[in-house]
Each structure stands twice: as C-alpha cells, then as structure tokens.
C-alpha cells in the first residue's frame, strides 16, 4: 500500500541557496511525526512545500496517491491537509469564534446570492456552523474568550485558537509549526494532551518543534534535518542515541 503522505526526493532552491536538498520520507496514517533540526535546516520550508505555498524545485509530493506539486493551496486544503503557522497568523480583525468559523469555510455552501436573498437554509447552516465552532471552542477550553478579538488574547490562548482553527477544516493531516514555542512547561503539557486527543480522533500529525520535552513524549517517529538534508530518521530512542544528531543538534542544548 502506498503511504499516506510521501515526500519523494524533494528539493527547493531560493536563488543560489538550496533550502531543502533531496529530502524523502513517508508518513503513515494516524501517526505523530516530528521534524527537528537547527534553525535554517528547512523545516518550515517542508511545510510550505506540502501546503503549496512554495513549489518544489525538484521531486514530488504525494498525498493519498495524488500529486500535490502544482495544486493551489486551497485545493490541497480541501483534500484534507491543514496547518498552523509559526507566527500564528490569526485573523486579528475577527473574534475567536469567527476565526474558527472561517476555518469551517469548506463545510459551508452559502454563497453571495443566497445570503443576499436570505434563503432559509443559509440561516440553518449558519446555526449548525456556530454549534460546531462552539464544540471546538469547548474542546480547547476557550469558552471564556469566544467573543473576544484574538489580538487581545494571551499568547497561550492564541496558540490554542490557531490549532482549533486548523482543525475546523476537518483535516486528515495536520501540520503544526512550533506549537510549543514560547509556552511554559505547564502550557506544553496542555498542548501535549490536545495532540493526543486529536490523534485519537483519527488525525495524522506532523510537528515542527524545538522543545524536546514535547517531541520525545508524543512522536512515534522523528526526522532530523540539517542544512536542508535529512540527517536521520527513527524512533525517539534511536534519535537520542544517534551520534550525528547529538553532534549537530541535541548536543547543543
């Protein structure tokens, strides 16, 4: 059987700089994988390549046997991939619940004409949307801030909104870019519980993360990138004992 997500010898050049160099790996359905490595190793670039924000210079990316290389981002999302950004990119002009409602865009059918004419089903759809959004808000314990603007929230809350918004698209594959960055140990513990719950609901997860307490606890597989190349791939235990990884990355901590 073909893998769920297949990165096949993918490279990305920015002018003369090769940010990602012939990286290959497979992701199994239902797994949690972490991508780690020093700054500038090409971790976020891999996410941008998978989601179509960047195009691979060489190589192919397959999701459920379909080639993603040339598809626009919103098409890739509709196939079941969602992500968060390292700098979150919440819609700061909208409330928390509205951010999540935007995440439910693909689940809705209301178009401009039916909205202007106030067709009855639009109202029903809107109510269902709202109920589903509230479910996510409860899951991420955001009840107290549901009607606040996201710009007014503490960072830890904003991170949870970002994950909830990405999950609102009902993805099969969720890419999280540094979900634990800037959080306290207690907040990391909360994120850990969230990730485990999300995975239990059947969503495959890939993390880009620096915080080893999260990476080592939740991942089944770790991929180490260094200068755009894949340095190692294995279970957390294998990675912790890998001398090359200790030399370039883990040893520095």
């Amino acid at each position, binding site marked *: 059987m073909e893998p769920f997500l297949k990165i096949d010898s993918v490279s990305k050049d920015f002018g003369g700089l090769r940010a990602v160099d012939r990286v290959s790996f497979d992701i199994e359905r239902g797994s949690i994988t972490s991508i780690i490595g020093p700054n500038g190793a090409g971790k976020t670039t891999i996410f941008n390549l998978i989601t179509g924000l960047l195009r691979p210079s060489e190589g192919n990316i397959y999701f459920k046997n379909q080639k993603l290389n040339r598809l626009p981002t919103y098409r890739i999302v509709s196939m079941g991939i969602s992500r968060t*950004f390292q700098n979150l990119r919440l819609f*700061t002009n*909208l409330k928390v619940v*509205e951010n999540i409602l935007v995440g439910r865009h693909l689940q809705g059918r209301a178009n401009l004409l039916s909205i202007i004419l106030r067709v009855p089903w639009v109202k029903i759809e809107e109510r269902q949307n709202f109920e589903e959004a509230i479910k996510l808000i409860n899951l991420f314990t955001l009840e107290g801030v549901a009607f606040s603007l996201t710009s007014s929230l503490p960072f830890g809350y904003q991170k949870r909104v970002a994950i909830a918004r990405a999950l609102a698209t009902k993805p099969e594959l969720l890419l999280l870019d540094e979900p634990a960055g800037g959080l306290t140990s207690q907040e990391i513990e909360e994120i850990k519980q969230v990730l485990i719950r999300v995975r239990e609901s059947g969503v495959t997860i890939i993390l880009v993360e620096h915080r080893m307490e999260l990476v080592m606890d939740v991942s089944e597989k770790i991929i180490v990138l260094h200068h755009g190349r894949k340095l190692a791939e294995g279970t957390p235990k294998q990675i912790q004992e890998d001398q090359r990884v200790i030399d370039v990355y883990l040893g520095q901590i």
Partner: protein
Amino acid sequence: MKKTQVLITIFILILIIFPVFVTSHYFLSTLVFIAINSIAALGLFLLTGLAGQISLGQSAFFGIGAYVYAILTTKFNFPSLLTLLLLSPLGAGIMAAITGIPVLRFHGHILAVATLGLALVMYTIFVGMVSVTGGHAGISSIPHLSIGKVELNTDVHYYYLSWGLILLLLLISQNIIRSRVGRAAQSIHHILGGSEEAAMMLGINPMIYKLQMYILSAMYAGLAGGVYASYVTFVNPSPFNVLVSLMILVIIIVGGIGSMWGAVIGSVAVFLFRELMRFAIPIAFPTVGGEFEIIGWGILLIGMLLLAPGGLIQLPQHLYQKLSRKSRYK
C-alpha cells in the same frame, strides 16, 4: 447590542419624519445627493472595508449605471423601474466582472492605480463616444422613475426612494458581514489583520471573494448612478470624473472603514466639508480656482488618519480612550 438597536430605530424615525418639517428644495436635494454618494460608498465598504482591496474605479461604475439608465430609457423606452433596479447595477457589474480578473491580481497601490486606469478609460469613453453618450453635451430629458403609474417627480419622492434603498442595502450588507462569504472576505483583509496565506490554508480561494466584492461594489455604484440619472434627468461626463472615485474612497475612510455605517456618516461629513471649502477657499485665497479643493481633500484625509484612524464612527470611543489615558497619568 440594545444600544445600537435604539440608535438605528432613532435613525430610521428621523429619516421618515424629516421631510415633514423640512420642505426646502435645497435641503431635500442635498440629502438625495448624500444618499446617492452613500450607496456608492456602501459598495466600496464591501470591497475595501471588508476585503481590504482598494478601488479608485468606482466613478466608472457610477457612470456606467447612469448612462445605462439614460440610454435605455430615452432611446429604447425601457421601463424605468426595471432599468434602475436591475440593468444599471448589472451593466456596472458586468464591467467589473470583465476587468476584475486581470486587475485584482494586483495588490495595494498597484491595484489602486489599475482601477484608476479603468476610471480614466471610462471617462474618456463617456466623453468620446458621442454617438452613444452624447459627449460633453450629454443626454437630457431622461424620464424620472415610475413605479406603476406613479411618476417620482418631486424631491420628497426621491428622498424616500434613495434613503429607502440605503436602509435596504445596509440590511444586505449586514447579512453579508455575518455570513460565510463576509467572513471569507474579512479573512483576506491584510490591513486590518487578515492574511491571504492563512485564508488559503483554510480552503479559501482569495480571488473568488475579491472578485465577488468587486462586482458587488460596482453594482452598488451602478445603482447609485441609475438613481442619479433618474433624479437629475440629465447626464454628462463631468460627475463621473476620477475625482469622484477619490471622493468615495475619502468618504469611507473619513466615516470609518471598519463599519458599514461609516459610509453613511462619511457621506454627510464629506458633503459638509465640501460646502465649507466652497465657502472658505474664495475668502482665504480669492484668486485661486476650484482645483484648490484637492488640497482640502488631502488635509482632511491626513487629519483624519492622524486624529481618528478608525474614522468618525470610532471618534467618540477614540477620544474617550485618549482622555481616560491622560487622566490615568495624573
């Protein structure tokens, strides 16, 4: 929520009873012109306030709406009501649909310049296509709007028509803001805090919503043009020059770009400002002509952006915050 409902009710009541007390032709026709500007500004609010895309092409759509009404009713005897409510907006909307796909690929000022180009081209067509538009001489004896057998031929009629349309369009705008489409549009508003990349990551194709808001804003402007032509009963190119596009943009910025009410408040404020300039400039600089107005626009725009970036609608809140901050330091 309660407070805004009370304010809206008061607003509607004042609108209804106003002509009972004020019967002067000057005041009523002024209010009709303010309403016509508000309709066009409300459309631009949907494009610029919601979706964050700047257009300086609204004068083109305004003109298309007016000429569609003028030509179809005078030369082809089309029914005026159908033409005004459907064909004027449709004509402008079709032009927006054709120009939207190439133009909306641009961002920021380049989009503004591209739409400005459209306004210039359309103005040139209004002036130059003499066989269709009558050139500078324009088209006269345009029939007023008739609803059934009733011809709307007084200022009071047009007052109720134009402000009634505004209430309807405000209601439609409100529905759009709180809908799937409205939220998608707001999610790409990069100036106010949206992000096209984040929106795409949620499955939104930004182009679709830019285009829809662009077409809708053009249809509002087209409707405004139709009302204008049927009220004034004469069109020539001068009310559709490029400065009108600028004025509509100034209206929504002065009124408050974050709220649909900013379009109405801004129209009133900009009208008052313009009257003030007409009165003040000849006294201060007796030798200059009307071109000096544009300096006044610039001062108004910069002043608003400095003193109340959220526009007049947020001015009370803005002043309150400033005052309470000052008193805290004492």
